[in-house]
């Protein structure tokens, strides 16, 4: 109880509340601008949060991402361009509704169910995180090794369209992470005599490069291709939302639950949650033929799911230090910088921070209602901000942000290098998220692997000796087995016609 009161005291200060409100406005803007994603909002915020106390820093990130995921729905309905990838699943459906003259209802439903879905996400985070932390406290290096490996495995299993490219991307991220002093023996690797490389590839500039610079490089070549906003006046968006809730409350619960589960799985975040819940909604709908014609049902599922996924992603991030999506991957980097190494011990040593995160999450979702309403009302103005002004300004912001992480141009080098690599990877169909996950989890994986190897004296069977480690290990092996089996079968299927 003391911890909760301390947490409330940490949050309800003018400065912290100001940071939360500013981040809310920032998140709404970034989310509503097509081409700027929630992950990019986080990457751009990090250099700023670097100079804050832990609570406002986390508050800024939690609030901005929650807002951005909702705000992505606005251009989806008005322009048929999703503001963030999380809205892509139901962009066509939303736009079809707008064309039928239901823009108000669509935006109202998106806003209200985003808030409700977000709250379900927080509720499940509050229930499950402490329980899991209690179990995790007894984990040794063996369990952590398997957990990290399982997390990375899930990332490939869940996201990649082409698993082979997903694995390659992951291995590349892990390989980049080996630059610098090695975590077990303190031996400098791949530093080529550079003092700055001893610390490794700084995570934040790398992140800004891969998520922001690569996006800007893609955006600048299409800078003049801005869509035309629907010329509809926006009235009272809340009319009819209650009727939708009465009719589709089951969809809301199902969507939110799916969102939390998918959010909690490493590597899959709000965008995948929306796609899957939309597909499930259509599959089990009584009127599947209405999907695609501007039908609200699937939107209820998906817009609840992408916001609840945000809370879900924090479960493994806080408990095990394993990110549930690319946003929490950045958050984990921030937590390390703040000296709050995520893991079950935070729940014991700094429970006030955990409670603070919970409270901020609730607060952010409640704030979404007024801020979302303002964003919807000013949607047309936001969407009119010219991109040829926006892109250069964001670019210089990225430069200064990367610089401020190392206080030298070395940070900008990393951003530039990783940005170009990220751009090349996307061009060639290699997903970026697994590489980032590799970059975040690499050290944890290697450290626990090396410690376990030394404990086991090099005997691999020792990795299965402890019961939980054995279960996690077998799960990992099984998932890999399934993937390889599927790979071989897929291979045969594509080979069959050529042989015939």
């Amino acid at each position, binding site marked *: 109880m003391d911890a909760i009161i301390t947490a409330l005291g940490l949050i309800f200060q003018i400065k912290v509340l100001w940071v939360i409100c500013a981040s809310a406005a920032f998140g709404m803007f970034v989310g509503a601008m097509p081409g700027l994603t929630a992950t990019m909002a986080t990457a751009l915020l990090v250099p700023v949060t670097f100079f804050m106390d832990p609570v406002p820093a986390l508050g800024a990130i939690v609030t901005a991402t929650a807002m951005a995921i909702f705000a992505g729905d606005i251009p989806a309905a008005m322009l048929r361009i999703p503001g963030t990838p999380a809205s892509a699943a139901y962009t066509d459906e939303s736009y079809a509704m707008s064309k039928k003259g239901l823009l108000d209802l669509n935006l109202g439903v998106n806003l209200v169910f985003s808030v409700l879905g977000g709250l379900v996400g927080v509720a499940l985070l509050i229930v499950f995180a402490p329980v899991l932390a209690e179990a995790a406290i007894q984990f040794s290096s063996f369990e952590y090794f398997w957990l990290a490996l399982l997390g990375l495995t899930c990332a490939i299993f869940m996201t990649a369209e082409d698993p082979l490219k997903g694995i390659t991307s992951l291995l590349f991220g892990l390989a980049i992470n080996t630059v610098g002093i090695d975590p077990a023996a303190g*031996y400098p690797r791949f530093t080529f005599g550079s003092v700055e490389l001893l610390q490794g590839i700084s995570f934040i500039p790398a992140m800004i490069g891969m998520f922001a610079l690569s996006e800007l490089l893609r955006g600048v070549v299409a800078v*003049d291709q801005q869509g035309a906003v629907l010329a509809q006046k926006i009235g009272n968006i809340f009319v009819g939302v209650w009727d939708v809730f009465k009719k589709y409350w089951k969809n809301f619960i199902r969507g939110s639950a799916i969102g939390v589960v998918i959010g909690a799985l490493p590597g899959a975040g709000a965008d995948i949650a929306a796609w899957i819940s939309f597909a499930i909604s259509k599959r089990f709908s009584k009127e599947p033929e209405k999907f695609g014609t501007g039908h609200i049902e699937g939107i209820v599922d998906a817009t609840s799911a992408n916001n609840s996924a945000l809370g879900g992603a924090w479960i493994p991030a806080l408990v095990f230090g394993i990110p549930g999506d690319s946003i929490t991957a950045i958050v984990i980097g921030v937590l390390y910088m703040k000296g709050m190494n995520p893991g079950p011990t935070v729940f014991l040593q700094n429970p006030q921070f955990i409670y603070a995160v919970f409270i901020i999450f609730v607060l952010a979702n409640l704030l979404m209602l007024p801020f979302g309403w303002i964003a919807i009302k000013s949607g047309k103005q936001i969407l009119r901000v010219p991109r040829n002004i926006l892109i250069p300004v964001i*670019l210089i912001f990225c430069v*200064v942000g990367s610089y401020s992480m190392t206080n030298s141009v070395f940070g*900008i*080098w990393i951003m*530039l290098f990783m940005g170009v690599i990220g751009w090349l990877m996307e061009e060639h169909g*290699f997903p970026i998220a697994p590489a980032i996950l590799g970059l975040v989890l690499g050290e944890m994986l290697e450290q626990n692997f090396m410690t376990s190897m030394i404990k086991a004296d090099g005997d691999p069977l020792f990795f299965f000796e402890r019961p939980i480690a054995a279960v996690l290990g077998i799960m990992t092996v099984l998932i890999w087995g399934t993937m390889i089996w599927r790979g071989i079968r897929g291979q045969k299927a594509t*080979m069959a016609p050529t042989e015939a």
Partner: protein
Amino acid sequence: MRANDAICGIILILFAATMIALTAHFPDFPGQKYGPALFPRVLSTGIIICAVLLIWKHYRTASPGGRWVTFAPWTREPWRLGAFFLMLALLFLYIFISETVGFIPIALLFLLALFLWLNVRPVTAVITAVVATIVIHEFFSSLLRVPLPRGWLDSIL
């Protein structure tokens, strides 16, 4: 620009092979048969396996006469291509001269060059560049106390 998967595979193999070669002189842990080289070598081996599979898959499925490298339509428009490379060139320029010149002049040049290339009207470009530079400078250097390079303006700031 998009190279085919076989070229990607070859580049990945070169990358991984270089990594393995660089681990050759890493010492082992005292009394153990492995050391800091183990993890990078495992990863490199993994990358090589993936790369070989990529190349193999490419030759299984590729249509004969397919190109090694294809270019997206925007690369044929000089203005778009220019915007892409101008961004990269300005980043290099920033890295090399920001310490000498200072943040304010280089940021102004950086923003103005991009705005004008991207067809922002000159008056708007100048005003926005000045305002954005001042706001970002104040935000980072006064509020967050990041030591942005002062360069030429050292005596004034």
